[in-house]
Structure formats: C-alpha cells, structure tokens
C-alpha cells in the first residue's frame, strides 16, 4: 500500500480553530491546538485504538454521549469541548476508578517521577478518594522474565503490553487472565516472557507495573540525565537515549525515530548497556611481553605500535569491524594507505568496487520505512530478527496494518514464514543459483537448471516471480528487496542477476521501492563509503592499486608478505569465516595491533598491542545506516580513565610517523571525511541533527555517486550470461549453513542481565535427516568435516529443509567458522 497523503481539515477545540489531517485521531489532532487530552491505553505505535481506559472522553457537539478522543477521527467542522464540567466530571470519575485499586506506593515505585498515571492524576484528577474498602491484592513483585518485573497491583489494565505481544512482536505470549476486576497480565502458560523485543513493554507501561529488573531501584528520575545517541550493536542503529547517573549508564530507552526504529528497541539494545561497565572490559593499553599481555602506560603502547608499523616497511594491513565509526575507518585507511603505503584495507564489504557502486546506486535505494508501505517485500537470505532485529517488527507491521505482501527466500527457515504469502528455500551457499533462477523466471530464460543447482523447486521460483511481477495489482507495484549482504559473497554471480531483477521490477528511481542490504556488521555501509575497502578510497574513489580483501589479508599474513595487522574493533576469529586459516595467519603476523573492548579469543591469543576501545556510550562520531542515513553518535558518559578515543590513537600513530594530520577534535576528522567524500559534500555534524539524514535524498549528493567503471552496469548485465556454482550435493553428508543469533556478541556475554540468553552451539536439522542419522532432539552431537569438528546440541525443526544443517557463528567456542564446509557430517557425541 502506498503511503496515504494527508488532507488537512479545520475543526474547533475549546473554541480554537485548528488544522489537522482528516481522520487523525482527536487526541493527536488536539495537540495541534495545544490541547492535551489525557490517555492511558492509547498508543499509536500499537495500532488501532481500543478505547479501553476511557480517560480521553470528550464532548463533541451533535453526539449525545461523551466520545473517546483516542478513537474518534477528526472531521471537518467538528466542534469539540474538553473543558466543560461534563468532561471534567468524566475525567475525574475515570481517574478515581483507576486509583481505587492502585496501591499509591509512588515513593517506592521505580516509575515515580516519570509516571503517566501520576502526571494525569495531577493534571486531571479530583485529588481525593472516597474509597475506603480493602484494595485488590496480588502477590508481588514477580519476575515476568529475568529482565522484567511485574507488579500486578499497580497495573491499570490498559493492556498495552498484551497488545504489544499479540499484535506487534507477535510472540503471542502475554495474555489477560481471568476477567473483570480479577483480570491480570501474565504469559499464557506461566513461563517467563522471553522474547527478542520483550523489554519494550517496560517503556509502554503507563504505570509502575512493568519495570526493568536491571534498573530496579538504581535511580529516581531526578537523579538522572538522558543522553541521546545511537545504538551500534547491530546494523539497525536504533536511536536510543542513555539514562545516566553519576557518569554511569543505567538504562537505555528508545529515542523514537520513525524512519529508523519506529520507536522500538530489541532486548540486546535495551540491556546490553551493562557491558559498558562490565568488569571484563579492557580499560588500559596492553602490550605482549614474554608471551603475556600486560598493562602498560599509554606512551609505551603507542611507542610499541609505532615501532611495529615502522619496522614492517609498509607490509601493513588494516581490518575494521562493524562498530568502527566513519571517522575511525577513514583514519585507519589513511594510516595504512597514506602513511605506510600499503593498499590492504578491508571491512568485509564482500564486493569489488564495481559491485558496491552498482548495488549502492542511489536510484536503487529503499528505506526502512518503505518496507512498511511497499506492495511487496522480498526477504532474501537474511533473518531480520537476528541480523537487524527492529526490521522484523517493521515487516510484521507492514503485513498486519498495510497489507504488504511478504515473500521470504532463505536457506534457513525464517521466523517470518508464518507472515509470508510465499516462502522459498534454497540450499545454503546457493544464493547465486537461486537469484539466477529468479531472474531467469522474469526474462524467460532457463529456470530449471539454476533452480536445481540451488536445490530449490523451479515451480516455487516461478511462483515467486509471478508474485513480484503482479504485486501492484496488474502491474509490478512497489517492491523492496531486503537482502542480507552475506548473499553477495558470490560476487558478480549474485549481483548481476539481482540487478537484472531490479531492472525487471523497475526499482531504479522509483520512490518507495528498491534494494535494502543488511550489512554483516553495524557500520558496514559507512565503512565502505569512507573507503575501508580494498579497491576504493573515501567516497569509493577508484584507486591506482587495489589491496587484498580480508581473505587475501589472511593469505598474505600466512605467506609473510604482510607482517603487521591493524585490527579496529574486530576479532577475525569471531567475525571472519575459516577460523583455522585466520588462526594460522594471526600466528604468523609479527605484530597484531588491536583496538578492542573485550578480550575475545583472537585478541587474547594473538594481539601484541591492545588499545582499549571506547564503548558505544562514550563514542563520538558518525555512522551510516544501511539505508544511507548518516547518524551522529554523541557521548553519554566520560571514558574510563585508561581509555582514549580511537581517532586520537590513530592521530598519534600518524604524527609519530611524521605526518601532520591536521586533526584537533573528532569533528575535524568528520570534516576531513565529509570533504573527501563527494556525495557527503556540504554536510556537517550540525546538519545531521538528532535524527540523521539520508545523504542520497539530496539530488546533488546523489549525483555525486561515482559512475561505475563500466558505465550503465544495469544495461550491460542484461546481455551477460550469469554464472553460478551449483550447491554441493549432500550425498549422505549435510550442507553446512550458518546463522548468527541476535544474542551472539561480546556485549551480551558481558552483560549480567542478558547472559542467560547468550547462545551455545546448536545444530538445526530436519527431522528427516535426524531420523536417518538416528539423532533425537536435544541430543549432544559432533558436527564435523575436513578434520575439524564442533560439539553441538541437535535442534530439530520441522521447517528445516532436508539435506542441510545450520550452525551458529559469532560465539566464543565451537562456532561455525571452525568448519570449512560446504559439507559436514553429524554423529552422536561420544559419551565420556
């Protein structure tokens, strides 16, 4: 459904003429005339109003009964009164009713001071009670989950939390038990409410009934300050407000930005702030001395790094992880390229420059909000709830409220399958063949061969093509392809048919349609735009000599052609495939300089110099959202004593090599970056503002996007024949697919509240294969191939395609990258 165009009408409220969009709910329209109508159950984010709390009763001329302002759409010429005696009596009545069973324990309630019930009672209540009966009692407080505490006596039964669970996150866990005055909120089966988005109910609760367990009794609203920034724990880059007391982050709340997060947060974003103050955080520089990392003064660490870089004679490589800001990435490539003359810089973008330019073409970009209003969204090779969680909610909203048609094409079963009109499975690693088949279905080519190679059904591919082609009724409507950038690992074999598909769907230059790629790590897009890719400089400018990508760097280290590796917020043993290869490469490196917040395996074993990294709450700089929105990180708290900003360290290392960097603050780095990226021209941190800015929405900036070397790639791809590798035939073994859970991150490991969610290895397989192998659900198994093996627990999923097995990556022990694939065997674990 395309976005509706608002039409303004005039209505009268308390004698004031006010303009508002037709059919806007009265509660919202009233605000345009500076009139506040109190509400409890009304929350536009939750969808259609329910009119349950009755707090918003207003008098509308021509309607005999008082009406709920939350559910009455405003009409032209409507005359509304909110200050009459009748309305005031009604408001006082409802408040009196709400408070008769409320414990009024505000002095010991976490919500006290920031409580809508307090505010509304103060503003609209009668200020007295006539209720002398015993109040309603429940056992309290109870753990609704390890993260959320529930106090049912405080609950006013607005059932926002239940609606969130039922209609937003669709985990269907929270329900209302009993009825009438005995009603209470709980999970259907009495189990803890554990779900990826459960923490949102804390913020939704208009009273102190649902409180954060990690935040319970930590501060009162008058002790704290809120500081706006952006969460950098995943590519979703939700806008957050850090609650700070005495220079410590105590809480994270959503800082609603509809274009980015729609006002929601995932539980990782909400609770992983605890890692900022975790004991295991690295807060002092370290140098390997006698085989052991020892804390040293800053000067010593800088000196060590400087010497290492100098001695390498330019045989340096830089690798940046997702948490790296644009500025850090920009300075890293300056250090490696300009100062030490090595071309090897990468941030695992996975594509050569031409591919990045073609896929990043401003005309092809879709936004997060487009997902909600498109006619059809194709989710390709990604599990949003793990890869970019908040988008999962957006897709569900699109399907539920805007009748968006959802299609899913993945190798691993998706949690969005129940919402999808069509779900197609292909073999892990067969993205190229699958996309080729889909593209062929559009252009009338041979579908069967690539479909068979992709281990999928040609009929299903044809059905998907038909669905995309007719999404707007008779014609192709607005289609958004939401793809995980992991699928691009196949290079041109994937991008070419994908671009061809985009051409067939008319995505280029079409508002509300396009491609939206989910990078493997938070700032993937910003890093490539800042030039942290092997064959392009800042602004994706062409380079004279192309460097090696991550895999190439590993090879080069192993071969001894590169001796110093500079790691920026990444541990290759965690973040890169082929763990054994990297283990050897890191072993071979003479120096590994790392900016790191946590002592992950690769850092502990191989780093020679460790610079403590700032946490995301301390950082200043910019990052780029997957849809091209430049966002600003602002420090909420000061750094721990031993921590310095990464840009400062890079600056010092460059100065030590005799280069005048011209840097004074992080803003000067931002300015340098913006000046050297043509399509950021004219931007400053101030123009980004609090909510960021999509650079490609400005025509001049979009026009500054570099032309690919072969002009008009879209035109040329149509004639070229796609090539693809066929997926491996299981032949008794199983194809290895990988996935990274939302909970697989060092921040989750380091957060006491979230620790219980940190995943251990499990292998997902279909019951068909399990039966053949004689493996039962929950059994301990060994997954192996090529001499390596990992221990896992068998997890049988009915939806899992036969012939494939899925292992987790990104976990400390026994991660999927221990195995090289593409085939693995599963055996029962030897009992010891």
């Amino acid at each position, binding site marked *: 459904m395309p976005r509706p165009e608002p039409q303004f009408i005039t209505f009268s409220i308390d004698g004031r003429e006010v303009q508002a969009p037709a059919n806007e709910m009265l509660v919202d329209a009233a605000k345009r005339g500076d009139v506040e109508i109190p509400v409890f159950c009304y929350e536009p984010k939750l969808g259609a*109003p*329910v*009119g*349950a*709390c*009755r*707090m918003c*009763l207003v008098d509308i001329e021509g309607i005999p*009964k*008082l009406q*709920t302002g939350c*559910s009455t759409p405003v009409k032209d010429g409507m005359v509304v009164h909110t200050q009459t005696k009748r309305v005031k*009596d*009604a408001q006082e*009545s*409802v408040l*009196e*009713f*709400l408070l*008769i*069973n409320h414990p009024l324990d505000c002095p010991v309630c976490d919500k006290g001071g920031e409580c809508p019930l307090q505010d509304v009672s103060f503003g609209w209540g009668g200020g007295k009670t*006539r*209720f002398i*009966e*015993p109040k*309603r009692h429940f056992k309290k407080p109870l753990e609704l989950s390890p993260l959320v505490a529930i106090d049912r006596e405080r609950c*006013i*039964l607005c*059932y926002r939390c239940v609606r969130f669970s039922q209609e937003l996150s669709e985990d269907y866990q929270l*329900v*209302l038990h*009993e*009825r*009438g*005055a*005995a*009603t209470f909120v709980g999970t259907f089966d009495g189990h803890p409410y554990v779900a990826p988005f459960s923490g949102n109910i804390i913020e939704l609760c208009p009273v102190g009934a649902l409180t954060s367990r990690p935040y319970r009794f930590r501060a009162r609203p008058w002790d704290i300050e809120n500081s706006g920034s952006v969460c950098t724990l995943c590519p979703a880059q939700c806008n957050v407000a850090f609650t700070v007391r005495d220079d410590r982050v105590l809480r994270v709340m959503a800082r609603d930005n509809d274009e980015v997060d729609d006002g929601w947060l995932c539980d990782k974003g909400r609770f992983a702030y605890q890692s900022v103050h975790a004991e295991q955080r690295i807060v002092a520089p370290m140098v390997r001395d006698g085989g052991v990392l020892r804390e040293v003064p800053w000067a010593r660490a800088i000196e060590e790094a400087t010497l290492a870089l100098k001695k390498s004679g330019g045989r340096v490589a830089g690798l940046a992880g997702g948490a790296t800001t644009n500025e850090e990435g920009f300075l890293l490539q300056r250090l490696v390229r300009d100062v030490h003359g090595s071309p090897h810089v990468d941030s695992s973008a996975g594509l050569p420059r031409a591919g990045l330019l073609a896929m990043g073409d401003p005309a092809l970009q879709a936004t997060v909000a487009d997902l909600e209003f498109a006619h059809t969204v194709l989710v390709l090779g990604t599990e949003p709830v793990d890869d970019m969680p908040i988008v999962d909610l957006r897709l569900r909203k699109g399907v539920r409220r805007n009748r968006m048609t959802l299609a899913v094409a993945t190798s691993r079963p998706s949690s969005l399958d129940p919402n999808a009109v069509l779900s197609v499975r292909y073999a892990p690693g067969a993205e190229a063949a699958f996309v080729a088949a889909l593209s062929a279905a559009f252009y009338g080519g041979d579908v069967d061969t690539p479909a068979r190679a992709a281990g999928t059904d040609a009929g299903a591919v044809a059905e998907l093509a038909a669905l995309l082609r007719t999404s707007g009724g008779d014609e192709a409507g607005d289609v958004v392809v939401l793809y995980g950038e992991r699928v691009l690992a196949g290079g041109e074999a994937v991008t070419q048919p994908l671009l061809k598909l985009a051409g067939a769907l008319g995505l280029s230059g079409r508002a509300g349609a396009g491609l939206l790629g989910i990078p493997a790590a938070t700032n993937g897009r910003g890093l490539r735009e800042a030039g942290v890719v092997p064959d392009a400089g800042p602004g994706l400018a062409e380079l004279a000599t192309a460097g090696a990508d991550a895999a190439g760097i590993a090879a080069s280290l192993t071969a001894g052609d590169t001796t110093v590796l500079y790691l920026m917020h990444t541990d290759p043993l965690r973040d890169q495939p082929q763990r054994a290869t990297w283990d050897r490469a890191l072993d071979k490196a003479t120096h590994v300089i790392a900016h790191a917040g946590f002592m992950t395996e690769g850092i502990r074993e191989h780093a020679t110099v460790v610079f403590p990294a700032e946490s995301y709450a301390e950082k200043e700089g910019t990052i780029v959202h997957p849809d091209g929105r430049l966002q600003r990180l602002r420090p909420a708290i000061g750094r721990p004593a031993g921590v310095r900003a990464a840009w400062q360290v890079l600056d010092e290392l460059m100065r030590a090599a005799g280069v005048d960097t011209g840097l004074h603050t992080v803003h000067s780095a931002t300015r340098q970056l913006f000046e050297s990226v043509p399509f950021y021209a004219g931007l400053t941190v101030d123009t980004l503002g609090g909510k960021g800015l999509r650079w490609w929405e400005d025509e001049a900036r979009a026009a500054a996007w570099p032309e690919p070397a072969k002009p008009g790639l879209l035109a040329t791809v149509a004639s070229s024949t796609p090539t693809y590798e066929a997926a491996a035939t299981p032949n008794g073994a199983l194809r290895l697919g990988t996935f990274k859970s939302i909970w697989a991150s060092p921040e989750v490991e380091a957060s006491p509240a979230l620790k219980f969610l940190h995943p251990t290895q499990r292998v997902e397989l279909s019951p068909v294969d399990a039966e053949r192998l004689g493996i039962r659900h929950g059994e301990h198994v060994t997954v192996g191939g090529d001499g390596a093996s990992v221990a896992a627990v068998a997890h049988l999923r009915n939806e899992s395609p036969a012939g494939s097995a899925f292992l987790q990556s990104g976990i400390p022990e026994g991660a999927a990258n221990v195995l090289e694939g593409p085939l693995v065997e599963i055996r029962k674990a030897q009992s010891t």
Partner: protein
Amino acid sequence: MSSAILFKDIDQPGLNTLAVYRERGGYGDVLRKGLSMPREALVTELVNSGLRGRGGAGFSMGKKASFMPKGTMDKYLVCNADESEPGTFKDRELMTKSPHMLIEGMILGAYAAGATRAFIYIRGEYAQMADILDDAVAEAYDAGLLGNNILGTDHSLELAVHRGAGAYICGEETALLDSLEGKRGNPRLKPPFPANQGLYQGPTLINNVETLATIPHVLGMGADEYAKIGVENSTGTKLISVSGHVKRPGNYEIELGMSARDIIYGLCGGIEGDLEVKLWFPGGSSSPVLTKDDLDLAYDFDTLAKAGSMLGSGAIIVVDEETSVVDVCLKLAKFYKHESCGKCTPCREGTQWTVKMLERIKSGQATPMDLDIMASVQEQITGHCLCVLGDAMAMPVGSMIAKFRPEFEAYIEEARQRSDAELIASLDAPNEAPLVGSLV
C-alpha cells in the same frame, strides 16, 4: 390466546422435527415468496412491519438489515442465542420447541442481509438446545433448505451452531463476534459497527433469536398486517419471561401495549401470598426498576422508555413487598461484577466498588453517606463505558437507591445496630470465638 404468533403451535408435539414443522406450514409458500422477492423489497417489508429487535436494544430490524453494504464481499448473519440476561428464558423455549422457525427466519434474514454464511451463537449452558438445533440444522441441510441453491433459488446459506463458553458479556454483539472468532470475548470499540466490519472484518447482521424467528410471520401476514398488531412504534407481539414472586411465572406471548398490571395480575395470577409488588424489572435485570405505582403503564418500548426504564429483552422480574431491596441490589451488583469483562475502567472498577459498598451495608459497617457515594458511583459509570454492561448495573442500582432510599437508610441503621450488638455480645463472652467479623 388470540394474539399468539410465535407461540401459536408451540406446544404441538414434535414441532422440533421438520415433518411436523412442515405440516404446520413451515418452509412453505412464505419461504418461497421471500426468496423470490428482490432483496431490497424484503428489507422494505421488514422496515414497514415496524419489527424492533427483541434482544434488548429494540432497534428496527429492517433498518439494521438495510445498513449492510452491497458488494460481493463475504457477509455474515449471526443469531445471538446467548440468552444470558437474568430473567430471560424465552429464546430457550423457542429453540427447544420450534428450532425450525428460527432456521427459516435465518434463511430469510440472511437473504435480506445478502449473507451466505450464518452462525447461531448459543450460550454454553444451553447444551440441550444446542443439540436440538444441531439436529434441526442437519435435517434442514438434508432437505435442501440449507446449503447451495435453497429451493432452487440463487440463495445459498451455510449455517453452523456455535456453543459459547459461559460469559454474559458474549451476549454483547461485538464481544460475541470476538468469541466466535476464537478470541477472548471482549467488546469491541464501535464504530465500526458490525454492519460494516463485523465477523472476520466482514459486514455482519446480528439479531436475537426471537427477532429472526418473527421474520417468516411478518412475511406470511404481510408487513402492513403485522404493523397493525401492537401500538405505534411497538408493533407485533412480544415473548415475555415473567419470573419472581408471581403465581404463574413463565413465558407468555403478548401484544405490545398490554398493561403491566394485566400481565402480572392477569396472565401470571398476581403475587404469591397475595402480597403487594415492591418493585419490578420490566426488561431484564439491566432495566431500571419500576414500582407498584407504575403497574398501569402500557408494556411497549416507548412508554417504558418514557417512564425511565426499558422494555429490554422482555423479562419481567417481580419482587414482592417483603423482600429487602438491599438484597436485590447486592445480588444484582454481584452478578455484574462477576460478568464484567474488565476491559474498560468504569465498569471493571465501578461494579466491584459497588459490591464492596453493598456488602459493607449488609455487614452493618455503613452510614447513609455511603448511599451518596454509591449513587454517585453509578452516575460515574453511566455513559462512560465501552459497552453497555456497566450501565446495565449502574442504571438498576441507581434507580433502586433513588426510589427506595428510606428503605436503604433503615436497613443501614438496623444492620449497624445488629452488628454493634453482636460486637458487644462477643465482648461479654471473652471465651467465645475470637473477635472477627465485625472489626476486621
């Protein structure tokens, strides 16, 4: 009785079977005539008959049917057989003895509404009636009266009987729809009204058993003839359920406009023990009470509304002079407190507050000031709720306090003295049971 329409053959043995129902003229010319009329003509006929909904709200049945949008979307007819208003048991007799009359009415009602799917939502406690309906529906299917192309016409209708799970609120039409969809039975916000967005978001016509069962008779005698029965704005006959302290309680079919005195003293033979009437509910327990001074009122929609009450579901509950109004009030409030769904604030909190106050009156811990609070709580509920359940308690309770205040006050005084005496007695006998009840 000469006026009997619905109950004309009601005691005919075997009327619940298709054969006997057909013998008595069922599923005959009337059905054929109805299905051969254009849909609009049938609706006009219903509008002209003046037939008003028999479930409680008394809205014109024809008009409601005319609100159904045209178009090819899935439309539904739902028969509200969740007869749960205390004092009401007329639909029960109708469904037990003449289920086919309801089915025939639903075939015609569905045709008028343009619906091809229909449900009978019957309260769970009516297990026997549900079985009877199931059998009747099966018979009707076998005879080609339900299913595709009924009697060779273009009209098709699928009819299913659905048993409720025992909640009063599921008789409220939107809560009924939620319950029918398999959700928790909570009322929905209106608008949208069911005629626009009802069952499964489709246009839905919801009518009471008696209303639907009347349709064949309206068609049979013609709208103009039917409109001649009864009085202006209250045409036709009405099934009434009389209960309470009368000599002959039960279901009666009356011509609307008959006087209440004729019903209570005529049809029902007066009050047990020849006592006086203290109060009576004219239309189920949700209707504000009337007193013995109101017995000469004509029993029709408008007259009762003018007297500050309502005809409701046609359930007359008579309370004699020896019964305490406080007991009646508490019994009633407890029912509504128990049945409140809890979705909206005034009903959820107001009903339980009222019960707590009435219990305090009974235990002798109240003062006359509590009556003011109780009366004001009823006012605070009325008109502020999501559905009518809150009003259904507030209006009768409010009317009892207004009309019987001296009795309430006397009761409070008496209960207080009794409780004081008990307290003193317990203090005089220290070795007796521990001091509970009056102080706690």
